[in-house]
């Protein structure tokens, strides 16, 4: 089980890192500016909408926009940190509970595989 889990983690890391090597940098646009690589799919879709319906005007603006890209990444990091904190708390308490159970001597946990 332990080995499977490490293999799973390695596969996820590989899937994430490989595109960084495999995807060639796009050629410079007509204005000489290199076009952006690894932009968000959401904003790529936004560009596609503008191509399909050039006259479309968004009719509602976000109520609150992060002051800069840095602030946005702060908030995304916060979101991930909250989630990771909760999962970490659960894992920590689960491991401790298992340890206590094993130490208490009753019925040695033989299901751990």
């Amino acid at each position: 089980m332990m080995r499977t889990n490490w293999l799973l983690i390695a596969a996820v890391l590989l899937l994430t890192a490989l595109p960084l090597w495999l995807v060639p940098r796009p050629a410079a646009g007509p204005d000489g500016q290199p076009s952006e690589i690894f932009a968000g799919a959401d904003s790529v879709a936004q560009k596609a909408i503008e191509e399909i319906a050039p006259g479309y005007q968004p009719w509602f603006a976000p109520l609150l926009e992060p002051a800069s890209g840095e602030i946005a990444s702060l908030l995304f990091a916060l979101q991930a940190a909250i989630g990771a904190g909760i999962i970490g708390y659960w894992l920590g308490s689960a491991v401790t509970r298992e340890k206590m159970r094993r130490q208490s001597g009753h019925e040695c946990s033989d299901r751990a595989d």
Partner: protein
Amino acid sequence: MHIMEGFLPVEHAVGWTLASAPFVVVGVRSLRCRLHEQPEQRMLLGVAAAFSFVLSALKLPSVTGSCSHPTGVGLGALLFGPTAMVPVGLVVLLFQALLLAHGGVTTLGANLFSMAIVGSFVAAGLFRAGRRLQLPLAVCVFAATCVADLATYVTTSLQLAWAFPDPVGGFAASFAKFAGIFAITQIPLAISEGLLSVLVVNALLRFNRDELKGMPLFAGRELRA
């Protein structure tokens, strides 16, 4: 998969909101009912929600040269049933729409529909089918969560193609375009989401086997992975 604020015509925005609303009501009710009966599941619900929170904050590079993120909804749908993740998805999407200008209030209905409703039902349905075919648990978890993630992004492409049909090729051409952006980008990320979900289920099997037995989709079968 987040359709940007204001980027759905008014009637579509209203329509998707109306379509999603009943699922929110049913989801809140089923969650409240279940937590009332089995308060010990609160911790696991927290873990499922946290998983979705983490995964939807991770923008990962993909083979198409753009970035997108998994949704993490499938895992919770397997544990708590398809409607239970709707309120959780709503919280995640509201956080991003209000604080991050990622997605939006007007597109909340459409985004909730693709992520928490289509994603959850596809995950739960595939998982049930896989278990019935007596496939190994890990295979069922992987297939259900991976395909659910993809289904979310296909739904987003359909929503956008419906709202913005191509002037020449119509709906089909437009769908091909949006699917090329969302669904293809999503393939490696969906695989990642499937693998991560298996990882969490492995941990649950090790540490929360008894609670897991109380889950409707996990009940009644030998739980050995």
